[in-house]
């Protein structure tokens, strides 16, 4: 109600004050609401605490003054320096010839205020609902990616110099769908006297098909150690059945569409067992076995380049953020 009176009083003044060249009256304002909150705060403070009274009084005085200034602006304000003659827009007649009715229309009408606040409030409510939903849609794929370390069993199961196909469940609770296959080769000792392993991940770095060792599996030597299946294989290269990718014994691409060398696992030796660490991408491997130089990069989905100019297309990959 205060609001409306503010407009009406302004409008009335403009009607009577036709000598004035004021283009428009002041529109609705939020100051009365803030003033009312201040008064309410003051009254509440009488019951609860004197501090609140002071706060309320300050709020009421500040916004009361602002409100008064807003209402009386047209009376106090200097006539803005406009040259009505130059305004040639047909539907916006110059102030000199303007009809009183046109002069009455505030620049920011109540209906426009209500429209804007309805849309704004709707957008705010929409955002409050949508953002958590969007977050839940997207984020779990990047936050819940923990996989337990895989224990491939005692080192003796990995004869020196030959590959062993080791398959295990990365997440036993999830079942077969989490089965991973690796090609493990015992490289013997490094120059520093550390045990060395080459552990290639079976997923093709073209598009993720299951790469196969190009050689016969030693059926007699197949072992199962605590859920890990170990199948020694006589292979010096790996091939992918889907699109013909071919890799050499170090996992370097030799033919076909793969864009990098085969992914590898880090490893550690715990209590005489070979334990897999994290998966990483490999740009290129030079040298072989224990003395190989491996260009290591954060893991990324198959098909993405990790080195060269093409890697600029994948500046940030999820594993850099989530690991």
């Amino acid at each position, binding site marked *: 109600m205060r609001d409306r009176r503010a407009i009406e009083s302004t409008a009335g003044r403009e009607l009577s004050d036709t000598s004035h060249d004021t283009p428009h009256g002041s529109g609705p304002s939020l100051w009365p609401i803030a003033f009312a909150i201040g008064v309410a705060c003051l009254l509440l403070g009488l019951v609860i605490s004197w501090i609140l009274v002071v706060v309320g009084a300050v709020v009421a005085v500040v916004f009361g003054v602002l409100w008064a200034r807003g209402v009386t602006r047209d009376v106090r304000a200097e006539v803005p320096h406009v040259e009505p003659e130059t305004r040639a827009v047909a539907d916006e007649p110059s102030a000199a010839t303007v009809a009183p009715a046109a002069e009455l229309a505030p620049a920011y009408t109540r209906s426009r205020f209500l429209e804007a606040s309805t849309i704004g409030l709707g957008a705010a409510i929409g955002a409050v609902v949508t953002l958590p939903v969007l977050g839940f849609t997207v984020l779990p*794929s*990047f936050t819940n990616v923990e996989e337990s370390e895989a224990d491939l069993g005692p080192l003796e199961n990995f004869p020196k110099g030959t590959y062993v196909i080791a398959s295990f469940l990365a997440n036993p609770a999830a079942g077969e769908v*989490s089965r991973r296959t690796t090609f493990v080769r015992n490289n013997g000792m490094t120059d520093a006297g550390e045990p060395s392993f080459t552990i290639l991940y079976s997923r093709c770095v073209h598009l*993720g098909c299951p790469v196969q060792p190009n050689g016969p599996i030693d059926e007699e030597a197949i072992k199962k150690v605590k859920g890990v299946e170990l199948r020694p294989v006589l292979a010096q290269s790996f091939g992918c059945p*889907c699109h013909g990718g071919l890799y050499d014994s170090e996992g370097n691409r030799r033919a076909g569409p793969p864009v990098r060398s085969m992914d590898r696992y880090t490893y550690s030796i715990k209590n005489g067992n070979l334990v897999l660490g994290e998966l990483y991408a490999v740009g290129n491997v030079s040298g072989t076995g224990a003395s190989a130089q491996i260009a290591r990069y954060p893991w990324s*989905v198959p*098909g993405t380049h990790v080195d060269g100019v093409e890697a600029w*297309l*994948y500046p940030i*990959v999820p594993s850099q953020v989530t690991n």
Partner: protein
Amino acid sequence: MAAKSKRQQMVDMAVLAPLDWVDERTGAVRGTKWFLFRNVPRDVSWMQTLGSAALTAFIVQALTGGILAMYYEPSAAINPQTGKPVAYSTIETITDELTLGWLVRGMHRWGASVFIILLFLHMGRVFLFGAYKYPRELTWITGVLILATGMLMGFTGYLLPWDQTAYWASAVGINLNGTAPFAGPWLAQFLAGGPEIGTETLPKFYAMHMLLIPGLLIPLIGIHIYLVTRLGVTSPPWSSEAAGRERPPTQPTGARAGLVRGSGGD
């Protein structure tokens, strides 16, 4: 008009009056007439039925899919009775045990290919007829979006049988998405629900296949059909009428509205 026959009165009472009642309140009857009883050029051909055929294929997909959903369960857990994943077991049940399940699943499985093939044929027809030109540009654009969402339906539906083909084809498909510049690896990880396909991937694809993508596709089809109805059907490029040639004077008047066929012209 003479007095209505008794039969006519009964028809009015039983059919026309309720229709009028509905139409007065909703405009549904006028809307249906606007949609169905349209003027089309006299020289339209069977080529212009490919869109309706694609729509029919989509309706078949929607119906059979809704029914399959009553029996299918998108779970990667192992069914203790069969020792196989639940999703695959339900597919086996639908195909081998449920009465006519093989037929409905077959309709859905082959209908998916039919739908995509018809979309491409329809698209080719529109392109060759030049029917994408003014004022039908937005019809073309919504059509392209329908094709894209239709292919998304195919992509998400392919994983659902949860067999080896489904698994590896989806792995390749997800990784294909992963090769897109910048956002690709993120998109792939989002689709798979992690670095690799896992137990969550299957229900995720099912929800997209059943709920999210149809929620996108059905409104797109609605907009597409609305635009087709609003803008009308184009003449074929060989149409002499569309080329501005005079119609022979023997035309009966009904032909102007395209209601009479085979009377003159070429």
